[in-house]
């Protein structure tokens, strides 16, 4: 669950180093893709994005552009030092790598073979799955002291009320509310109920601070 292999695209369109930039760009348009891994003898040797291809030729409107795209080989443009992921990497780790390196995709390699590709769209999809945003539910954010048992207490309140938790994500540590001490942490719940009013009431009575839904 939530590993790279659960979210990656398995049908990868890969090119050989001799492909021209013009051919590669046409493929990007047809297949509506933006990232092209390049394979040589089955081994990943480089990666290029549609932006790399476009910016390698003279600008749009330049009379020499079409010819330049015909003459450029993808091996002239591609990035050779490819940042990759493994199928069993946790998705959050892969997302962090993409964020730190400022890249839009990670080819997924297992035992030297290209087995998939993880793009930023796949990470977005994982985020939607993680937060249950595609399932019916009410969003509720409760802040609580950052210590053992507080999250369990909040979850217990939903349990007692017969409300299922669709997802829960713990947010970063934050300042306590006025009059409270020590670090607090907010938990973002998606709960399967149309009527969170009773749950909010119980949470507040038990000392939780309900940050969402906002009050009038």
């Amino acid at each position, binding site marked *: 669950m939530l590993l790279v292999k659960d979210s990656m695209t398995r049908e990868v369109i890969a090119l050989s180093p001799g492909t021209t930039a013009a051919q590669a760009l046409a493929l990007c348009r047809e297949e509506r893709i933006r990232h092209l891994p390049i394979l040589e003898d089955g081994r990943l040797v480089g990666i290029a994005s549609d932006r790399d291809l476009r910016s390698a030729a003279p600008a749009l409107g330049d009379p020499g552009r079409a010819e330049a795209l015909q003459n450029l080989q993808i091996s002239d443009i591609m990035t050779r030092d490819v940042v990759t992921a493994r199928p069993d990497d946790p998705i959050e780790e892969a997302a962090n790598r993409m964020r730190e390196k400022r890249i839009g995709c990670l080819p997924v390699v297992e035992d030297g073979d290209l087995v998939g590709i993880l793009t930023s769209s796949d990470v977005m999809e994982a985020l939607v799955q993680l937060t249950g945003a595609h399932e*019916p539910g009410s969003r509720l954010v409760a802040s609580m002291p950052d210590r053992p048992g507080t999250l369990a207490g909040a979850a217990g309140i939903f349990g007692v009320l017969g409300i299922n938790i669709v997802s829960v994500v713990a947010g970063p540590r934050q300042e306590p509310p006025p009059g409270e001490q020590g670090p607090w942490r907010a938990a973002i719940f*998606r709960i399967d109920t*149309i009527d969170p009013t009773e749950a909010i009431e119980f949470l507040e009575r038990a000392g939780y601070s309900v940050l969402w839904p906002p009050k*009038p």
Partner: protein
Amino acid sequence: VAAEAMSGTAAVVHDLALEAYGFGEGHPFNPLRIRLTLELCETLGLLAGYPFVASEPATDEGLTTVHSLTYVRMVQKAGRGEANLWDLMPYGLGTGDNPIFPDMHDACARVVGAVLQACRLIMRGEATHAMCISGGLHHALRTKANGFCVYNDAGVAIARLKEEHPGIRIAYVDTDAHHGDGVQWMFYDDPEVLTVSMHESGRYLFPGTGGIDERGRNGAIGYSINVPLEPFTDDESWISCFEAVVPEVLRAFEPDLILSQNGCDGHALDPLTHLSATTRLYEYIPRRVHELAHELCEGRWVATGGGGYDIWRVVPRAWSALWAAVSHQEPLEKVPEDWLAVRGTESPVKLPLLMRDDPADYPLPEHASEIADRNRRTTEELLGKVLPLIHGSVAP
């Protein structure tokens, strides 16, 4: 459309058995609201000459046009007390929102049958408009009870009409405070069914979906329309958004029948939502839907109820106005004393004496103009995205 052209006969589909759809004491979805509404209509004299039209429960065959047979069997078992709670919960049954109750399958199937009956009356030409306020259970999903809704009456009715009248184009207009998710997903890739839902934004309210980018799928992109409204949206902004979106998309679509879901839980007093509408909105919307039905589809219009959780002060007045629009009667001014004498003593809250809310009691929400601006931008962006994609029926 001239006033005399907007006539036609009206029918109300109801019987006492429909009031069995409810989840018991202490649950917000209380069938007493149906009773209170019909009694108020009757005391106002709005039901004179309109005997209730009876209906049969939907059959398993009807229900399985949009629900899985496994789910229907689960609801049946739940209602007979034959199923284990842990087996029911994956189907949304036996939860805090949708507790099981005796004979729940029958009660739920009756609601579906009643809305289907209302639609069939229209299609047979026995009435031009019909109302069934027990209907409007728009959250029910294919294999899951959801948000107080077990079977999706509009979903089944639309699917059945499509079987009985191939090629029929149905516009579903949902102005409940919650997104009409169940109906939307059932017809998400069907360009013969236009679903329009105006609701409080899913960022703040269940079910969380209904953003403007949910526009349909495959050959039906543009045929799911969502207008997510800011919390505390008032009548004025609501009405502007309705006017900006609904007439245009319906005209582009050219429906043969309009099915409207008239939840009144966007009222400022509603305990479950954060909108700021008053009875003005709930008088306005059905009148406009009525006009559009006459303009676009010879008046063919079926109106259902929906959400509404201030069952004493809001629902009876809002749905009396709905029935007045359906039946071409003028809404009355005063809440009748006879009704107040009986129900006023039972109500836990003081009941209003007038049918229409006094605007003085509902001051403009703070930041009303910012809220209206945001809503306006939402409708502009939405129209730009969907209007070019909606096409009417092929000319004969």
